[in-house]
């Protein structure tokens, strides 16, 4: 059942259309990822849902209730801000307590709630630290805890990992997923990083220029992008126009081909199969751990090929000729317009 439903959300600043009719449904307990380039309106959409900006049009329903006219605090929404937005003069415990105190809860209840949520984010021993004494990852977890402690119906996360360095980022990503699973909290996470989107999202909505271009599961988005924008934004697939693909396979073809580098197989196709065979030359070789990345050329077309490396096997040197086979059912094709 749809838990959060956005319909035709529109917002403009002056003449700039920032949100151009956003429709989105999120299921209960889902981790939904909004993926899109910087400036496409992701933050604005989150802020509209939270009630921090008022969209010009559209309706928002959360758990069956129309919330678009409610004050932010009455929407039951928690938000983790891009730059944490922790209260710098307060300890971690005070940061978490501030919102609870507004609800006139008994001190003992407040303390219990805080302890429980600090346990979830593994920060029990930092309760009395101040934000400036915490690392970036710890601050991020405090921000998460501050949103969780109010037991929201919906959690919004605006690029929660983008300010962290690569290693912590990956660790916190897994932890975020674990916490979301454990709490079962319906969440919308914004990112411009496709790896993050693919590894975190139950479903992903790709945004461009204030519109959602595709909403689907990670593998679906990855292998079957709805249009060229999504194809270019996700993954590093070879995008070959109909003309280029025709030249590559030496046969007439009328659609844009999206072929992931690992779909090209090095070696001849087995006897009697309907795979295409292409004679190619290696232009460049990069051996990166368990995969080898090649740039190859065939019939004047350049493209990327990726193969598994093996311990006792040499990879192909630049200049070597080889045969590639392509299984067309592993490619994705878009009508040209």
């Amino acid at each position, binding site marked *: 059942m749809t838990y959060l439903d956005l319909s035709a959300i529109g917002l403009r600043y002056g003449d700039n259309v920032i949100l151009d009719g956003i429709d989105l449904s999120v299921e209960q307990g889902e981790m939904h990822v909004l993926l899109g380039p910087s400036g496409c309106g992701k933050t604005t959409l989150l802020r509209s849902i939270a009630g921090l900006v008022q969209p010009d049009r559209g309706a928002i329903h959360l758990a069956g209730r129309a919330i678009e006219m409610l004050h*932010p605090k009455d929407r039951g*929404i928690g938000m983790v*801000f891009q730059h944490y*937005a922790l209260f*710098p003069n*307060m300890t971690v415990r005070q940061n978490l307590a501030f919102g609870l105190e507004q609800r006139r809860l008994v001190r003992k209840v407040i303390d219990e709630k805080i302890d429980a949520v600090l346990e979830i984010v593994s920060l029990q021993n930092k309760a009395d630290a101040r934000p400036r004494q915490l690392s970036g990852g710890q601050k991020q977890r405090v921000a998460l805890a*501050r949103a969780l402690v109010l037991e929201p119906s919906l959690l919004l996360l605006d690029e929660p990992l983008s300010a962290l360095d690569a290693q912590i980022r990956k660790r916190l990503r897994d932890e975020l997923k674990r916490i979301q699973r454990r709490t079962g909290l319906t969440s919308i996470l914004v990112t411009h990083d496709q790896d993050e989107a693919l590894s975190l999202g139950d479903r992903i909505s790709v945004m461009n220029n204030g519109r959602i271009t595709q909403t689907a599961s990670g593998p679906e988005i990855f292998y079957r992008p709805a249009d060229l924008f999504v194809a270019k934004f996700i993954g590093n697939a070879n995008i070959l126009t109909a003309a280029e693909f025709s030249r590559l396979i030496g046969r007439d073809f009328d659609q844009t081909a999206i072929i992931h580098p690992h779909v090209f197989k090095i070696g001849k196709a087995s006897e009697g199969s309907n795979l295409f065979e292409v004679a190619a030359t290696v232009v460049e070789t990069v051996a990166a751990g368990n995969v080898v990345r090649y740039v190859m050329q065939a019939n004047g077309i350049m493209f990327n090929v990726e193969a598994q490396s093996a311990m006792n096997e040499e990879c192909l040197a630049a200049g070597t000729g080889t045969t590639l086979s392509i299984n067309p059912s592993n490619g994705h094709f878009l009508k040209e317009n």
Partner: protein
Amino acid sequence: MTTTRHPALTTTLWFAAILLLLPVLATFLNSIATGWTGGILPSGLSLDAYQTILLDARFQSALLRSTIVAGLALFLACLLIVPAVIAAHFYWPTLDTWMARLVILPYAVPTIILMVGYLRVFSAPPLQLGGQPIVLVLTYVPLCFPMFYINVKNSLQALDTTELFEAGRLLGISDARLLRRVILPSIFPGIALAIVLNFAGLMSEFVYARMLVGGQFETLQMYMFAQRDLSGRLSSVIVTVYFLITLLITFAAFRLVWRTETKS
């Protein structure tokens, strides 16, 4: 935070610190010397000069006047300037641009022109107060403006105030409450710094005091000026005392900042 050791840098910093302290130390030494001629060090030491100065009723009242005027001016400045800067920061960006331009005014416009302006303002209604000590207080308030503006503004910019207010709204905390509980405590160190710097400046102010209020209201600097012919020793004592007072205020302010930082 990690501290890395750079021997060359450490040496340079110590050298600079000693160099900067040298005049202060020399002044202090002069203030306690009984005679100091023809040698690198004084011939004898005594605190007699301090007794002379500190027990001088004229010195005491000069010190009191300067402290009261500076204190009143700073009090008014806190009351008027700080809320204005905060309000402009949040609600009136255009006003804020003008404030940023006004910052250089006291430095860019020659004192003599400001002085003439002040004299005219205070010689006609509605502020016909010419020569009264309150004129000095009212003159000092705008002089404090740049330091307050720069420090408060810097502190505000260091905070991501938009996100803080939004975070507050989602938590059900009103803007006024967030301002009181989060923004003000966070910019307090900046305000304290502005107070200390301005206090030091006002205590050593001479020109405005002399020109606007004149002889009947002797401030610390005017007292020092009057004593200039007496002896170098007495002047040194006054300077040392003045330096110690400023130091004391600075420490008090930093203690206060430190206490609010660890308490709140």
